[in-house]
């Protein structure tokens, strides 16, 4: 009969045995090697009945449909813009999805988005060959103003945002700043020079302690201290 080798919430490394026998099924981040289920990446084990899943602790971003990402314009093409998505696959922002304005034939496309601009965009489609399409039409999708760009681990983005934006909201309120975090692990910060560093440190702290309980209180404490110190 099948045997489970690891416990729930245990940290495993790629290649580690998770279970033996055909009773267990490999889920996200796991694979079957003959009789065994093995880990395919670094992560926390999550067991749901017979299915073993891994919550990744690291890794690059993989584009997924409906993700809101922050991308950088790297090329202006005939029919749109090529956007760097901080993953192995760059994305295409086609003309018709780029803006609600009317773009005349032969218009200079750099007046809308030029190379080096950062945009908040939504992934509309990812093909099996990992060709990615984006759209800028929709609420909350826009070109970003100048600000600080930092890279965070894509796997930690849900923790940084928090439940319905609670964590990022707390940082915003405490430091009186604007923050956007894309699913692809790029964050944009617009804050006063004094507060900018506090925001960056707070985000780095969430990344570092993302798997620890009571993270919200810890971040709150850090923010209170840092904001008070700079306020004086």
């Amino acid at each position, binding site marked *: 009969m099948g045997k489970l080798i690891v416990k729930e919430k245990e940290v495993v490394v790629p290649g580690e045995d998770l279970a033996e026998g055909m009773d267990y099924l490999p889920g996200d981040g796991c694979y079957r090697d003959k009789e065994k289920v093995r880990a395919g990446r670094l992560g926390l084990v999550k067991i749901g009945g017979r299915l073993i899943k891994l919550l990744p602790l690291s890794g690059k971003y993989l584009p997924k449909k409906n993700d809101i990402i922050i991308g*950088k314009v790297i090329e202006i093409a005939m029919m749109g813009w090529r956007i760097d998505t901080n993953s192995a696959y760059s994305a295409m922002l086609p003309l018709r999805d780029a803006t609600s304005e009317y773009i005349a034939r032969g218009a200079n496309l750099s007046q809308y988005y030029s190379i*080096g*601009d950062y945009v908040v965009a939504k992934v509309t489609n990812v093909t099996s060959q990992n060709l990615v399409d984006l759209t800028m039409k929709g609420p909350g999708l826009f070109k970003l103003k*100048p600000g*600080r*760009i930092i890279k965070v681990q894509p796997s930690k983005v849900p923790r940084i945002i928090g439940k319905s934006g609670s964590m990022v909201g707390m940082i915003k309120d405490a430091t009186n700043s604007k923050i956007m975090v894309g699913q692809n692990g790029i964050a944009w910060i617009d804050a006063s020079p004094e507060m900018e560093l506090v925001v960056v440190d707070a985000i780095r702290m969430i990344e570092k302690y993302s798997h620890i309980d009571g993270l919200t209180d810890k971040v709150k404490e850090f923010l209170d201290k840092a904001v008070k110190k700079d306020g004086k």
Partner: protein
Amino acid sequence: MNDRMIKEHVETLLKKDRRLDGRKLTEYRKPISVESGFIETAEGSARVIIGDTEVLVGVKMGVETPYPDTPNKGNLMVNAELTPLSSPEFESGPPGIQSIELARVIDRAIRESKFIDSEKLCIEEGEKVWSVMVDISPVNDAGNLFDAGALGAIAALKSARFPGYDGERVDYKKHTDKKLPLRKTPISVTVHKIGDKLIVDPISDEEKSSDARLTVVHREDGKMCALQKGGTMPLSSDDIAKMIDLGIEKGKELAKALE
């Protein structure tokens, strides 16, 4: 590459005398650590850590024929390899312009400061001399490889010991106590100009935003030995004077890290 937004942001911060990581304009990252004798199989080695930047330097020695124009002097070769391991921007393959410049600037620092007493490396004039090879490999590039690499090369040369040599063959398994003949220590400080501000020890994002840089090499006795200008923006003689002063001032801190 061409990260306009990051450059703009670095410049706005610098106008208020602030930097991305909260340091002062002329402040090195801490800690600066230099660990000599890191690799046992090399004759000399060092590992330098400045903030998140980490560089390994190895020194190998061999007996070779001297160059025809310097028959009584030892050879010095400095090589840098920017491994893909150290930064997502480095590719494997033949050396690129960046690694060639890095190696040349550090080579010049050692050569022009006359750090190695190369005449003492001569075994038989015109026939046999000791050849010193310095290899620089970054483990993590978080900016300022120039200063970290130079610091590592100097520490590695200081820690180097001759291998066994019986007049015919070099025995690398044998270690002697004989040190390289060294003179006054050179120190390399790279000053960057972004907008109209001068900074030292840039992190990667600041390096990408740099308009011009000047690597200032001086000896511990205060003598200037080498300069290297990089970047696209021209520098006025006033700028250069300021950068050299800053380089000499900051060099004291780096010299302390060397002990």
